[in-house]
């Protein structure tokens, strides 16, 4: 008997490919924008045949990646019409978060409220007090409240276990990477230990393990 569920499995590889294709689209969009910007800076004369060929190739590959994402999404959706209460809340939460993040990002970019260097993820320079307060309240108050609700009411026990294992491995990664980096810095082989870099490494490790345990 053909079992569509067995064929689909945990959807892990499919989601992984969708993420990789998404990164590909972002990268290629950057290349296309860079190519056109360089052309405009060089005078903006009519494009040559080779330029058209390069652009057509880049756009074709971008569209192909978008098509692959759409096909993979359709394949995931084909057996997932029914969803539990938790899954529906989960999906609503994800869509809400993307919309909130997207609208906030676009609003900041369009109003030019803050210096681009201020809002850059890895910027280390000074920040305006207003932005510092907004970011602190978001990360220190809103996110913990949302996270508490997320773990209490939205994720199921299998995902909770994936989070726990991810957190454990991330904790060990921090415990081992931080002193190794510190020793190598003292030995003059690495730049000074960067707390923010360690923070992101820890999050990245937790995310990778969570994804592995939830989907693969």
């Amino acid at each position: 008997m053909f079992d569509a569920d067995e064929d689909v499995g945990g959807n892990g590889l499919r989601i992984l490919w969708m993420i990789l294709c998404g990164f590909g689209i972002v990268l290629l969009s950057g290349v296309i924008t860079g190519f056109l910007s360089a052309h405009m800076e060089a005078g903006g004369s009519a494009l040559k045949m080779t330029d058209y060929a390069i652009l057509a190739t880049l756009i074709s590959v971008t569209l192909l990646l978008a098509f692959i994402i759409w096909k993979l999404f359709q394949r995931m959706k084909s057996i997932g019409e029914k969803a539990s209460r938790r899954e529906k809340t989960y999906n609503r939460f994800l869509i809400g978060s993307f919309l909130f993040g997207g609208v906030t990002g676009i609003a900041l970019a369009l109003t030019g409220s803050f210096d681009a260097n201020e809002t850059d993820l890895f910027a280390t320079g000074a920040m305006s007090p207003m932005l510092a307060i907004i970011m602190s309240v978001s990360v220190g108050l809103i996110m913990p409240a949302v996270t508490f609700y997320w773990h209490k009411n939205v994720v199921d026990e299998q995902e909770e276990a994936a989070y726990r294992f991810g957190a454990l491995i991330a904790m060990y990664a921090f415990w081992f990477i931080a002193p190794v980096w510190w020793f190598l810095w003292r030995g003059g082989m690495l730049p000074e230990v960067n707390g923010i870099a360690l923070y992101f490494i820890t999050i990245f490790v937790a995310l990778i393990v969570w994804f592995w345990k939830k989907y693969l």
Partner: protein
Amino acid sequence: MKNQLKVLRAMRNWSQADLGEHLDVSRQAVNAIETGKYDPSLPLAFKIARLFDLPIEQIFDDEFEGGNDV
């Protein structure tokens, strides 16, 4: 841990999403339990047993074959 979840689900003609809806867990969770990648908690195991009206040990098999250890 081996289990009969896939067979029991098929007997009721349920998809993994259907079973997930009954248990209030995601389809991924049902898939992970069926494939033995995740062992459910005791409360969820009892919920599964009640849903299929079977004792837990008829659904889940810890592959214990007797001996001195408990």
